[in-house]
């Protein structure tokens, strides 16, 4: 597998400018002769579909929801970063770039990250022009908030619904193009395979989720913007339908899969309340600014928190990380919480939870001020748990949240299959081993509005594409394979529900490939995942037919792919013999429990190549070089951030 990142030459600040200057173009009249398939209508998909249609391409857009507006980007709460320096607090493109590289623990590609930071400004301009109602100052200027991992205030937001508003902006641009007839939208349509013809991505095979009919769509390029796969854990902050199917099928067709084990776990989610629970809900991290985290000192203490006296409480984050305290970075906090719960100190009915206590802040600041600050979070918490966070401490627990891993792409966001571009969370994004808060939205829009519209043109201009027809060989074959696979799922007629397998898989991964990983654990996990996969194909029960609206069948297909991806995640975690960012290997820590990073051996992107079902995948590496920011001590950086938050 050839891994040429194709980074343009020149100094970092000029790479993208140069690229755009020299990029080959397609004449306006010629653009309408190109058909592009866009799978996914989240921030990345909707923005690219709209931008390409505006340029004149024929676009076919797909999503599994009933409306393109419901992609999971809608759920992002916090905000979007942009280096506008509206606060005059020293922000710059360079600072956003360097913070992202450092935040990602030096496992991302410098040139890509720089471009991301560079484009952040115009993205805000674009969104404002579309009518995104960002928060404003009384003067009418845009307001900013600060976010974890950053020393400046650069996060633009729309209350707690930033993702929703940005997506609605992109969706409205898409709607306009649909109305003009330049985009044809296929909602409730799931991509189940990629078609590669003549070594190039030339189309997809889909299932119409209403009628069950399986069809092939031919195109000149295929763009995947299908989001992340944290839902593999079953209990995650992702939507129920989030899946890896599109990228997994592309992987099986030859696309390299980069860093599959990089999963970000978010420390402050509402804990599971029982076995029936279907997902976990995020509580913004900002609560840690005013809350103290603790557990009872006695194991299995069932007293009400208010009855536990001060000296019987263990403020474990403050104890373990004297310098960070309750504001320890996401990965450290998550690990600590899991550890105390595993040791039996956890609170709540499941024992999987710790207190996030605001009582001190209530005394200090008063309930009204806190309500003003966190009102909507309190509302969500109260609705879900029935408890008022101002009266009794909240309970929180970490949950899988975001996947930095994804399909490998070069500077132009093209995968190892020519003609297959990957955008948004679906690619092995610009976030390295850990993502900064408020940068995923930025990446999705940068990829969609401003990068692929250029790089796709370059691909078309430099390529001679033969005509293909959905009636041709590779299409018909792929279609048949999909048909057989779908039929096989229904034919098993076993005894267990799809969800039962998904839950089991999630628990396995959480245990062994979650917050902390060990060689023994990962090896066990791989064995168990294989066993589970066999069991799935023998004992799953998918009721109903393939030719009708069948939600169990949809789930089954996704879980079947997750069962394969899970193994690759474990393999990747096993092969990465170091601790970096979100990836914590128990064997690789310093004596005081800090992660041990091995830049000598692992300063690279791990890229996996599929070799067939009966053969082991092959691990390739794209070396990473850092010319501008040097791998320095992340902890030192984080403590700077801590001082800042302390004074606030």
């Amino acid at each position: 597998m050839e891994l040429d990142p194709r980074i343009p030459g020149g100094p970092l600040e000029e790479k993208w400018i140069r690229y755009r200057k020299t990029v080959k173009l397609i004449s306006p009249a010629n653009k309408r002769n190109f058909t592009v398939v866009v799978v996914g209508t989240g921030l990345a998909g909707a923005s690219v579909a709209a931008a390409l249609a505006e340029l004149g391409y024929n676009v076919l857009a797909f999503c599994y929801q009933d409306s393109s507006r419901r992609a999971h980007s809608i759920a992002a709460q916090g905000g979007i970063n942009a280096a506008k320096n509206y606060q005059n607090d020293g922000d710059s493109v360079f600072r956003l770039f360097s913070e992202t590289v450092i935040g990602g623990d030096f496992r991302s590609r410098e040139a890509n990250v720089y471009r991301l930071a560079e484009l952040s400004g115009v993205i805000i301009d674009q969104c404002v022009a579309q009518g995104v109602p960002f928060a404003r100052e009384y003067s009418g200027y845009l307001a900013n908030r600060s976010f974890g991992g950053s020393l400046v205030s650069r996060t633009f937001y729309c209350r707690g619904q930033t993702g929703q508003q940005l997506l609605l902006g992109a969706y409205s641009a898409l709607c306009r193009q649909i109305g003009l007839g330049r985009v044809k939208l296929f909602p409730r349509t799931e991509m189940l395979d990629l078609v590669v013809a003549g070594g190039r991505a030339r189309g997809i095979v889909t299932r119409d989720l209403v009628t069950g009919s399986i069809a092939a769509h031919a195109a000149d390029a295929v763009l995947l913007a299908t989001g992340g796969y944290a839902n593999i854990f079953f209990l995650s902050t992702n939507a129920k339908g989030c899946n890896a199917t599109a990228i997994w099928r592309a992987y099986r067709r030859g696309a390299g899969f980069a860093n599959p084990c990089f999963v970000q776990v978010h420390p402050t989610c509402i804990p599971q309340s029982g076995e029936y629970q279907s997902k976990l809900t995020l509580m913004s991290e900002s609560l840690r600014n005013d809350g103290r985290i603790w557990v009872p000192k006695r194991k299995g203490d069932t007293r009400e928190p208010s009855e536990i006296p001060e000296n019987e409480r263990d403020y474990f984050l403050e104890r373990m990380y004297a310098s960070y305290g309750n504001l320890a970075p996401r990965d450290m906090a998550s690990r600590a919480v899991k550890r105390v719960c595993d040791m039996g100190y956890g609170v709540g009915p499941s024992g999987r939870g710790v207190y996030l206590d605001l009582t001190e802040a209530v005394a200090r600041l008063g309930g009204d001020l806190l309500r003003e600050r966190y009102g909507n979070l309190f509302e969500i918490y109260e609705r879900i748990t029935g408890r008022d966070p101002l009266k009794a401490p909240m309970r929180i627990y970490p949950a899988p949240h975001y996947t930095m891993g994804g399909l490998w792409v070069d500077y132009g966001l093209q995968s190892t299959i020519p003609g297959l571009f990957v955008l948004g969370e679906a690619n092995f994004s610009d976030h390295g081993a850990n993502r900064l808060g408020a940068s995923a939205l930025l990446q999705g829009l940068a990829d969609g509005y401003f990068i692929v519209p250029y790089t796709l043109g370059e691909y078309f201009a430099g390529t001679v594409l033969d005509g293909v027809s959905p009636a041709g060989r590779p299409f018909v074959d792929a279609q048949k394979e999909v048909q057989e696979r779908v039929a096989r799922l229904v034919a098993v007629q076993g005894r267990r529900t799809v969800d039962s397998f998904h839950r089991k898989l999630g628990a396995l991964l959480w245990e062994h490939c979650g917050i902390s990983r060990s060689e023994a654990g990962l090896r066990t996990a791989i064995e168990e995942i294989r066993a589970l996969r066999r069991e799935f194909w023998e004992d799953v029960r998918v009721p109903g037919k393939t030719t009708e609206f069948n939600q169990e069948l949809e789930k089954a297909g996704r879980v079947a792919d997750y069962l394969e991806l899970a193994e690759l995640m474990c393999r990747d975690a096993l092969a990465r013999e170091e601790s970096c960012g979100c990836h914590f290997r128990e064997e690789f820590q310093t004596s005081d429990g800090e992660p041990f990073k091995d830049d000598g051996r692992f300063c690279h992107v791990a890229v996996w190549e599929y070799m067939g079902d009966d053969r082991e995948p092959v691990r390739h590496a794209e070396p990473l070089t850092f010319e501008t920011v040097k791998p320095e001590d992340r902890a030192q950086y984080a403590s700077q951030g801590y001082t800042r938050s302390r004074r606030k």
Partner: protein
Amino acid sequence: MRLTLYIWRQKSTTDKGRFVKYEVENASPEMSFLEMLDMLNRQLIERGGEPVAFEHDCREGICGCCGMVINGIANGPAGGTTVCQLYMRHFKDGAVLYIEPWRSRAFPVIKDLVVDRSALDRIMQAGGFISVRTGSAPEAHTILVSKETAELAMDAAECTGCGACVAACPNGAAMLFVAAKISHLGLLPQGQPERDRRAQAMVRQMDREGFGGCSNHRECEAVCPKRISIRFIARANRDFLRASLFYSKSASGKAGATGKTKRCFEK
């Protein structure tokens, strides 16, 4: 908790549909309504039956996928919430619940509790946007928006397109949805140039889709998970009225061109 459920089962759009009775034992008050249905579905599948189809995705009240009418109220008795964020503690042990899909001519049933809401998307496609080309936007700070206006626009922009307003409206009107969209864009300075055109196009499409008209029953506001105010309906009416009376009747700057000809040019 024990519950008796009468759930609307309908195999497909053309099927007639009927209520089927289910008994649910050991539901927990901490469950969400959808988790209770998950549990029912699991039992149905394990017993060889067909699970109840219902739509859902984010399960945190933002995507707008989920929705059903529970005992005659869209999204159930709690108010101001979606069914994925409706918890069983709002129901009494032993409750008898009738569960029905959104019912509207514009929302044909696809299966059981799943309906086709693409009519709302078509309304958006008719005019729910600001026509700005990617890359042609001016620097963000050249457009100032007062805080009050931005907040008000945001109040309207929060609409999730869930369709609960249509389901609850005695007339099956989509007016709250359309009004939220018209108001969101119409309030902002960026939305002014297309304001009249947008109001007309969206209302026209709304009518084409077969929704009812608004008689100001206020049911929509009472069930809207985002608590969108019917004040926006008044606003949208005003915009539509203004557009109908003045839009494109404005005289052309050229001598001899009357308002009427201008109108023809527009077509």
